[in-house]
């Protein structure tokens, strides 16, 4: 392991650990309406918004009202995005004169950005006007993660015995107090480090080698900031953060990795403050952290060892550099890839399709679990879903009524949680089966052999997990995938959030039971082990067969130097 790798990992992982407490405290103060540093500049702005909306900070909604507000607001954004993309050609800020998008791509893109997936069946630099980039897609990269965070907040309030709060208040505060200030800071840092931020048209140059080159520009730095702070992951250009225009140095790469994890990890700590169970929060952080480090190792070591088939050629060095950029180093590339899969960002600093099979397995792991911190709010929802399932399973083993945070977990909560849990594999496996069984689906495969199956699986997993990265070879712009993955993204996002909101409310209305010696403790190393074990077992049972046909089969064939022609 090189000095650069160690330094990079220490900065990113250490930074996230050090910041999770102060940021978590800040979040807690903001969402319990206590005074914070940004009151003075932001309060007048917020008061203006609330006055126009006729809501007050302390108003509350029921779970159904909250869910309806969440879904309706998202619907408004979806319709707005679809419409603006369809008429892009007549809108301003279009120096490269890009035309309207067709219906299929507009639907897929609107669904993708509204569900915070940011799957892209296009390349921004040759499809989207500056207006579409900053006023449609970048706008959605602000508001959709904020709405996900709001839903997570409501659930946390319910669990901690508080009223759920008001969706519009939470949405506004996540933006004015968290995402907007951070985006300005990170955006400025990105410009300083070489990311363009301009409304000037593309740059035309004549190269020393006698060719012409057109270099895209645009308001890229601001985009990069919110793309990563919101765990969005939609790239300004096709190559996303592999493109030197978006991610020009090892430092910007580190900042983008940090930006992805900053708020999701702090959300876990905030949960501890809300419920008064800080040790439980650290236990959950330890569970997600263990999985994070596992993924990092699963990516770094195989990629550093390289592709055995290529190594047999006898070149100098043996890292797998296919689809990777030199400037990040292997340590930088692997921490970025781990972050993007753990925090479900879906931005990429290299080509997912060209990674070795064990690294792909780590990518799948992040998206299957969807709670290795996950996106802010939503990742915590998924983690708590596994906590409830684990407590239920342990209750079954010892023959007691399971309890969590002093509330009995009963048939209703377990049913709703199971729906939320089973939905994910259902979407992934049924979607992939459909693709494999139809000529329309198979037409999208790029690489031969088991890797082709991985490409299809990756597409549906990415959609269902609202991750948005792709094994880029897959024909994402084929109508079959535009439609199928579009639908998967929508169901994956809303059904599970609404189910978990209902769980939160149901727990809120239960009478608290006193903690006794028979109560299962959830803040101990034992629970860390049990939770980790159940997460791994539940997911292995679900996904092992299909992993055996994809990445695992490919791994053993690779070791045997088998090539597909």
């Amino acid at each position, binding site marked *: 392991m090189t000095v650069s790798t160690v330094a990079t990992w220490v900065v990113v992982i250490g930074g996230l650990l050090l910041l999770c407490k102060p940021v978590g405290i800040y979040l807690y103060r903001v969402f319990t309406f206590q005074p914070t540093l940004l009151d003075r500049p932001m309060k007048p702005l917020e008061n203006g918004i609330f006055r126009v909306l006729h809501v007050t900070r302390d108003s509350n909604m029921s779970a159904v009202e909250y869910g309806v507000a969440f879904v309706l607001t998202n619907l408004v954004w979806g319709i707005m995005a679809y419409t603006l993309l369809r008429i892009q050609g007549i809108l301003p800020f279009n120096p490269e004169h890009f035309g309207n998008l067709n219906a299929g791509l507009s639907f897929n893109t609107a669904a993708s950005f509204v569900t915070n997936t940011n799957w892209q069946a296009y390349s921004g630099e040759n499809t989207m006007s500056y207006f579409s980039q900053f006023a449609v897609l970048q706008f959605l990269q602000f*508001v959709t993660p904020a709405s996900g965070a709001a839903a997570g907040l409501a659930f946390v309030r319910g669990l901690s015995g508080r009223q759920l709060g008001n969706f519009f208040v939470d949405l506004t505060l996540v933006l004015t107090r968290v995402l*907007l200030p951070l985006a300005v800071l990170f955006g400025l840092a990105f410009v300083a480090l070489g990311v363009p931020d301009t409304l000037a048209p593309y740059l035309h140059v004549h190269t020393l080698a006698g060719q012409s*080159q057109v270099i895209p520009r645009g308001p890229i730095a601001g985009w990069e900031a919110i793309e990563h702070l919101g765990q969005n992951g939609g790239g300004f250009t*096709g190559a996303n953060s592999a493109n030197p*225009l978006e991610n020009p140095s090892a430092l910007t790469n580190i900042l983008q990795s940090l930006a992805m994890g900053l708020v999701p990890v702090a959300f876990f700590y905030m949960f501890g403050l809300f419920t008064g169970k800080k040790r439980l929060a650290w236990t959950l952080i330890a569970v997600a952290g263990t999985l994070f480090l596992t993924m990092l190792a699963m990516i770094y070591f195989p990629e550093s060892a390289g592709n055995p*088939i290529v190594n047999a050629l*006898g070149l100098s060095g043996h890292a797998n*550099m296919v*689809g990777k950029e030199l400037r990040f180093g292997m340590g930088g590339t692997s921490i970025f890839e781990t972050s993007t899969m753990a925090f479900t960002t879906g931005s990429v600093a290299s080509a997912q399709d060209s990674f070795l099979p064990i690294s792909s397995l780590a990518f799948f792991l992040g998206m299957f679990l969807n709670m290795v911190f996950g996106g802010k709010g939503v990742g915590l929802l998924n983690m708590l879903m596994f906590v409830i399932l684990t407590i239920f399973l342990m209750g079954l083993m010892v023959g007691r009524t399971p309890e969590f945070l002093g509330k009995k977990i009963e048939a209703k909560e377990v049913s709703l949680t199971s729906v939320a849990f089973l939905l994910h594999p259902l979407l992934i496996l049924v979607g992939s089966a459909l693709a494999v069984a139809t000529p329309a689906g198979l037409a999208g495969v790029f690489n031969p052999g088991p890797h082709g199956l991985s490409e299809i699986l990756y597409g549906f997993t990415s959609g269902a997990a609202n991750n948005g990265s792709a094994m880029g070879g897959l024909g994402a712009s084929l109508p079959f995938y535009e439609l199928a993955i579009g639908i998967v993204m929508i169901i994956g996002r809303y059904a599970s959030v609404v189910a978990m909101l209902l769980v939160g409310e149901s727990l809120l209305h239960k009478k608290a039971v006193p903690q006794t010696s028979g109560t299962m403790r959830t803040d101990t190393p034992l629970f860390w082990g049990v939770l980790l074990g159940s997460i791994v077992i539940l997911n292995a049972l679900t996904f092992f067969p299909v992993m055996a046909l994809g990445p695992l089969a490919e791994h053993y064939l690779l070791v045997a130097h088998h090539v597909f022609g």
Partner: protein
Amino acid sequence: MLLTLKRAVIVTVLLWIMLALGFTFVLVGLGQVFFPYQANGSVVTVQGRPIAARHVGQYFGNRLQYFWGRPSATVSLTTGKPQPYNALNSAPSNEGPTNAVLLHDIQRRIARYLHTTPGLTVGQIPVSLVESSGSGLDPDITVQSALIQVPRVAKYTGLRPARLRQLVRSQVLPPDLGVFGPSRINVVLLNVALYQLLHPQSAAQ
């Protein structure tokens, strides 16, 4: 329900003004005031002519007298045919590790280096020099990747190998802040320096 829908529309309009317009224009403004060079794409000029963006790689493989960058898998937007370093269509090759095409491409690139460079052996060629990048626009190569090209560049420019090795060493970019990322060579900047060595009048201006 209707009231919620109305609120959803109103909040969207207000947030849009704040985030789509406010944030974008304020940041573009700050960037143009404080970091105008970076904000406008870090343009590299030779004799007052823009010839490159500092961070975006360019294709030199058509000229034997220049240093070559990493392979690029970008294609033309109109024909779909290979067009290396097409910044309008950034993309990787997406070739998987067991794909025969990947192996074939690597072998073809090795053969080209061996064919054009006097005295070069396979064991000297860094793997990153024959494997294509993630964006197709990677501006950098390793120091060794530049040094092994010196015999070819010397042959086609008439410059002494020792002078070229000195040039390469003068262009080494250290890791960010001394520790983050590898030492590397920006091929565009290296070739600009080479051009100025060959055309002393261009460097003077």
